[in-house]
């Protein structure tokens, strides 16, 4: 038999073992699926999602708000920053978020902190989708209002009056928020938080944890 053919067979066998090992032993299939295929690549499409900043009741998937959100809403508004390990816009936005809340953390960290912001409580979550728990990962699509699937995504959850009942409502913004400078981005995030706080002040007394 030809040398090239035998070499080919050996190489193909080794590669097959390698691929099999990566898929079966190292969850590479899930890694590719979760990190690349299921996440909208904003770099690939050269577009940023337009953030519609109205507070809405209906979640992105139609599911209920997660338990950790409902529970913490009794103390203050919720701010969630979703990101992934590899994401340039997330890296651009991270220092702004840290500055606003006066926090220090690494991008791989999944963090919850009750922060004092303008003399009110903000429940701050930093959720890295590559390291988060399943409940936290699921919450990403729940708050992905427009089902964009892109990161970073910033969510403000507060409470608002809806036909006789005070219910949780939220808004979200994506990427670098369509703003050019860090100052504009910071101003926009602060604006979002303050809108959430205003709604909370007006309605929180009527909110009951289910």
């Amino acid at each position: 038999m030809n040398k090239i053919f035998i070499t080919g067979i050996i190489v193909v066998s080794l590669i097959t073992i390698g691929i099999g090992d990566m898929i079966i032993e190292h969850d590479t299939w899930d890694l590719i699926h979760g990190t690349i295929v299921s996440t909208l690549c904003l770099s690939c499409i050269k577009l940023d999602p337009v953030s519609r900043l109205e507070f809405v009741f209906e979640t992105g998937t139609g599911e209920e708000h997660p338990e950790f959100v409902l529970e913490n809403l009794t103390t203050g508004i919720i701010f969630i920053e979703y990101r992934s390990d590899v994401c340039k816009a997330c890296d651009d936005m991270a220092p702004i978020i840290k500055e606003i809340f006066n926090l220090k953390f690494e991008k791989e960290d999944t963090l919850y902190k009750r922060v004092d912001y303008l003399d009110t409580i903000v429940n701050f979550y930093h959720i890295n989708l590559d390291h988060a728990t399943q409940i936290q990962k699921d919450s990403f699509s729940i708050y992905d209002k427009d089902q964009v699937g892109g990161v970073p995504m910033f969510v403000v959850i507060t409470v608002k009056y809806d036909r006789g009942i005070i219910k949780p409502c939220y808004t979200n913004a994506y990427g670098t928020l369509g703003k050019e400078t860090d100052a504009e981005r910071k101003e926009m995030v602060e604006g979002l938080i303050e809108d959430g706080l205003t709604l909370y002040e007006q309605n929180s007394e009527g909110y009951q944890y289910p």
Partner: protein
Amino acid sequence: MNLRFKRLISQFFFFFLTNLGLKIENVFPGIKTGFCYPFFYCHACPSASAACPLRAIEIGVYDGKWNWRLILYPILLISFVGVISGRAVCGWACPIGLIQRVTGKVAKKLKKKYSLVGKIGQLRIEPYLRYLKYFIFIGLVIITPIFIGFMFTDLCPIGYLVGTIPISILNPGSFSPNEFFFIAMGVFILFIILIFLVERGWCRYFCPIGAMLAPFNKISMYKVSVNKDECIHCNICSNEACPMGIDVPNMDRDPECILCGKCVEACPKKIISFERV
């Protein structure tokens, strides 16, 4: 069934598999897998069923944090395909190859009609331009993500074609251009001009996946072979058939050969054939 038709069926079959991720409300949920395409296609396409291998490599090396799983997985998949069939996927499976099959016909006509267009493929520097794809692969896919950022995906014309355009049409008003949008649009326009002027222009000069697959032509189990003793040097295979502009009678496992079989069909002496080593 002639080779041309078999290849067309194969290209459509792979085009269908590539786009199995298409979600149709209440009819088909769309299949999104953890697979990497062994050819050029963008996972940002709303109907994509797998990942772009280049994006996996980019993320794997990003910021100098070497994620070996993301780097090795696409490389191993492409190596697997390469060892078996060399660059045959470019000719038989790649959806961008399918697009260039159509534009190639226009390129051929233009080449006959305007001598200037014909001269593009005969420039003295043309063989050297083919090395561009290796520089793009190493420079934009591997090096820039380590030090600067995602230069390749930020500018990729295929992402623009199958990602940006369909997403903008399907979600009017939901997205706004980012800082790379207009540069990428320029690259995309150049890409379109290129594939209408030079047959398989993208595969020849720019495709980084082609660059990954090309060396495997040297050791692949399938190749195109020419019986040089019986060749009458009519050059129909090179001048009229080969979409990659290869000197077919003198080739021996040419890294540019995409095993499309056009030369096999065109040879009047029938001395060119596919061969399994």
